[in-house]
């Protein structure tokens, strides 16, 4: 109830500001934290509003005195400077009051923090791993594992196509979770520090390479919740969104089955033999979604940071070496091990593509079976 009132007051406060901006709806001018959809996110939101209003109150008090003084105690109004200064009593009073206010803020903050950090007794665990610039989700209890990459088309980013409502907030494989389960997230990274943040859950947690940070949530409503990587992680830090889909238990179970089926299908596909055209077509798609962020869509790379594929000694040289880099990456660099990220088909296609695009006309074909053999 209290929180509702606060929310109303907050909006009316900024309503005034908005009127100055004139004519636009609230939706275009979001101004506050999301309340979120979990118990914790509500706690955090209420805490936020509490400290916000305390700060506003203190501000108003101080500013009122200042403004009053500025308007009355001016020389042009004939004010004569008073003589008073140094008063230990006053100093003690205005040291004590803020201190007590702070204690009042610290108490709810402490309880909220303790609740937020309590990851005990979870029902399931999902390992979340940050990569430059995508997320990997491993369902530790179900043996499901997949990557999640931005799908907003380049044209929208570069302004050649109109932007969707979910601009920069769409991924190919969202993380799916059941409702009414305490889910523990085990967050880590494969390269640099990222930060996994879905505002509706009420927290963010850094993904630190070599360490696992845990966090938890328990959702009650099915829905789609969107977030972003929140720690600068290099060039495409702004382009690694998170989409979390909460499903009812039945829907979730069905999704789990589907995932297992998909894994089996991929294993089957790995035995297929593809034509050059098929490989090049698949390869181009895979290249653009997985490699172009670094090696660039035209294969030119970024000198000094990411090597060119066009004319690269690897891409026009020994195939085995190329496959090896594709599968295992180059340890200690940004070049990741794609063996675990892409299916054998996609990897075969993308390597074929690299060997035949951008003027690398080697004519080599790599088949899924070659990848499986090299793994």
């Amino acid at each position, binding site marked *: 109830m209290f929180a509702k009132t606060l929310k109303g007051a907050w909006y009316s406060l900024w309503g005034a500001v908005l009127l100055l901006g004139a004519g636009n709806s609230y939706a275009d001018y979001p101004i506050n934290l999301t309340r979120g959809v979990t118990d914790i996110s509500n706690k955090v939101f209420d805490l936020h509003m509490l400290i916000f209003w305390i700060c506003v109150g203190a501000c108003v008090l101080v500013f009122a005195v200042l403004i009053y003084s500025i308007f009355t105690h001016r020389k042009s109004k004939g004010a004569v400077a008073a003589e008073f200064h140094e008063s230990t009593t006053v100093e003690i009073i205005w040291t004590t009051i803020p201190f007590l206010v702070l204690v009042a803020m610290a108490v709810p903050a402490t309880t909220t923090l303790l609740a937020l950090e309590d990851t005990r007794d979870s029902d399931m665990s999902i*390992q979340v791993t940050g990569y430059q610039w995508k997320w990997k989700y491993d369902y530790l209890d179900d043996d499901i594992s997949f990557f999640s990459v931005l799908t907003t088309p380049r044209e929208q980013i570069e302004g050649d196509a109109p932007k969707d409502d979910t601009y920069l907030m769409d991924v190919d494989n969202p993380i799916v979770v059941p409702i009414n389960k305490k889910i523990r997230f085990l967050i880590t990274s494969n390269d640099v520090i990222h930060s996994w943040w879905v505002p509706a859950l009420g927290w963010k947690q850094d993904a630190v390479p070599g*360490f*696992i940070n845990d966090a938890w949530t328990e959702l009650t409503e099915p829905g789609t919740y969107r977030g972003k990587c929140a720690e600068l992680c290099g060039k495409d830090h702004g382009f690694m969104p998170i989409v979390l889909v909460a499903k009812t238990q039945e829907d979730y179970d069905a999704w789990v089955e589907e995932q297992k089926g998909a894994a089996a299908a991929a294993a089957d596909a790995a035995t297929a033999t593809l034509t050059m055209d098929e490989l090049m077509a698949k390869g181009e798609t895979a290249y653009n979604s997985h490699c172009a962020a670094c090696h660039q869509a035209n294969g030119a790379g970024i000198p000094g940071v990411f090597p060119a594929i066009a004319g690269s000694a690897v891409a026009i040289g020994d195939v085995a070496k190329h496959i090896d880099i594709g599968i295992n990456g180059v340890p200690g660099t940004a070049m990741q091990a794609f063996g675990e990220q892409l299916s054998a088909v996609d990897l075969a296609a993308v390597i074929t593509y690299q060997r035949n695009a951008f003027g690398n006309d080697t004519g080599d074909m790599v088949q899924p079976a070659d990848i499986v053999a090299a793994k």
Partner: protein
Amino acid sequence: MSSSNGGYYLPAPSHWPIVGSVGMFLMLFGFASFLHGSSALVMSAGAVIIVVMLFGWFGTVINESLSGKYNSQVDTSFRMGMAWFIFSEVMFFAAFFGVLFYARMWSIPWLAGGSNNVMTNELLWPGFEAVWPTNGPGDLGGDYQYMGPWGIPAINTLLLLSSGVTITWAHWGLKKEDRTQLILGLMATVALGVVFLGFQAYEYYHAYTDLNLKLTTGMYGSTFFMLTGFHGMHVTLGVTMLFVILIRSMKGHFTEENHFAFEAVAWYWHFVDVVWLGLFVFVYWLV
């Protein structure tokens, strides 16, 4: 009008600072280029310029001092300058000691599953146990042996401690105008410092060739070489300064009341000494 600071010596415009800046720029820019494959030429040129600057600048200061331009207030400024410079050096070492403590008390136990990091160990580094010394769960640099305290390090501790005594003895000599004692004391101190460095060089050689203990040996190797290395560099600097003081003493510089340069170097030397004790305890002994 009082004139208690009327005589404060204000130096004339000087070109040494800009020379120093150019030298520093060339040396560091050259070093960074060197790390990326350029020749060491620019870097060395910068270093030479810095050495020239130091000689020129300190030479000027020495001349001003000898010609009696400095009053006691100037002397106090110098003392404060040196004291707070040493404090900044202390903080520099504090950063590395802090890192050592952090690794031993937190990061390594965490990697082994301590505190809120049970899953770190289970999922990422299964089987890793918190021990010190360690080259980490990735076994970086391969098998190695650690550097025990009771061989060379213990000898080096004795060397540095005695050098603290000899420099104090030299100081007594200076205060009672006993030049021989001053010079002998300084010579002994320099000698002890040089021997210390010799032992340390041998220790490094031994570590690299016999123990497979290197900079790349995980956190142990990193902290070991970083702390002892920077300490060694400070000893080198200290010995050089002591040597200069020795030459100046032989030339008859310094009087019993006025020998700030001597004291500054002595302070510095004591600082280097104290840091060593910290090293001996935390890097060598408590393994």
